[in-house]
């Protein structure tokens, strides 16, 4: 996937799965992977704050005391909304399907294109 690697990714040996559905184990791994990346970003932010404080550019207490004004609040709310829109895309498209009448079963779409032959030409049997 994605990145090229010099080392191997899997340890030789059958990997144990603990839940009845191994996909649950995989989701647990994904969630912990994401949790790790949040922690990495949080540490980075913490470093930035501390460096800024050391350089006298801000005091971290100021961050705690910071009160966003109405415009900032609105900007942040808008960002969060689009962010959630990305994460909950799957839920949103489900609604959109209903709203636009996009409810044809997929098999019908396959059948429709397969039957879409030029008149007078028999389908070759394979």
């Amino acid at each position: 996937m994605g990145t090229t690697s010099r080392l191997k990714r899997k340890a030789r040996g059958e990997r144990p799965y603990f839940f009845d559905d191994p996909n649950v184990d995989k989701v647990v791994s994904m969630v912990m992977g994401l949790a790790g990346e949040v922690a990495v970003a949080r540490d980075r932010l913490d470093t930035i704050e501390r460096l800024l404080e050391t350089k006298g550019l801000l005091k971290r207490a100021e961050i705690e005391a910071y009160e966003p004004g109405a415009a900032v609040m609105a900007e942040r709310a808008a960002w969060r909304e689009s962010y959630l829109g990305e994460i909950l895309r799957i839920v949103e498209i489900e609604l959109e399907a209903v709203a636009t009448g996009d409810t044809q079963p997929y098999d019908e779409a396959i059948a429709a294109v397969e039957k879409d032959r030029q008149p007078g030409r028999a389908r070759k049997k394979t």
Partner: protein
Amino acid sequence: MAATKDPNAQAAHVALPGTTHDEFARQEFVRSYKQFLVRHVHGGNRKRYDLAVKPAFEKGHRRAPKDRFEVRDVMTRDPYYQMFSALLRNSQEMMWSACQKPVEREFDALNDKIRHQRGQKTKGSLKLDSNLKTPRYHTAVDIHCQPGAYHSEFTPEDASPGMVYDRGVHIYAMGQMGPYNDDIGASIALWLEDHHPDFAPQRILDMGCAVGHSTVPYTRAYPEAQVHAIDVAAPMLRYAHARANDLGAKIHFSQQNAEKTKFPDGFFDLIVSHILLHETSEKAIHNIVKECHRLLKPGGMMVHAETPPYAGMDPFDAFMLDWDTLNNNEPFWARSHEIDLQALSREGGFDPDKEFEAMIPSALQVAEAKRSKVFQGGDFGGGGLWFIYGNAK
């Protein structure tokens, strides 16, 4: 303003891969993740067992589970245990991944540095044997889930498995083995100093030395002694040699199998190993003890550090200790913890009256208690003790 350094942070040396800000944060996350599981999740299994799983078993069978196998049958169906296991296995995989990333970034530069050092005059020496067969217990599965384990080479003359391992050990032990990952070796050296103050070995052998992290303390404890260290994996030894040289430790590394070495009879006064035995096999463990007997001078001693045997352990505790056997690529873990060590000694040619088994204090914890002048009573279990098995000849 210089920040106070964490005294147990891993000490840098020439072969240790560096980390970017985020790589380090990723490794720190894994450390916290593992610590959290130990402190807050692991114990929940005992509660689930006592309060739900065991009573349900007793209802059906009119008795408690009689051994770790019966405990396993019921616990593996418990949702809490399933989630715990999924989290623990995943933490091990994330740990190796977080240690691999910096190595991949510095792959060529670090390998070049280590190769360059081999061309220079070094303390100690390195002797590789490309004809040595990697034993099956190292190739069947990658032990403790390090992808590629100890022996895989991803480039000619590769030392990268050592780079990944050295950092991985520090995170796996959650720093509890000290800045040099040397606590097991240091603890045996301290135990020898306390219990055998007149013992002055002239030649010492460390079997299955990996990156030599447990070997180095013997060069400090016995500066007059000639110290040898062997392993079957060339990549580990390349790294170990560079590491020891940079730390100023004179060690003679060679690629050999502990079951059958090339050293002459009676060559050593002291033979040690550090959590090696459970990484081998039924046949190999017997061969290793026999080989120790052959290699020791009369009056010499072998000391092997391991985790404690299962004997006398409650079936549930044995089941939990067995987790690694099934889930962390440690196939010989369970069996190696059931072996009658006195019989093992006897079959190896040793006098079983001179066999010993002991729980010994961690050198790191002893040093910390001295430093802080605080007796840390009640906190000495867990990582604070090591189990040793050995025999004098």
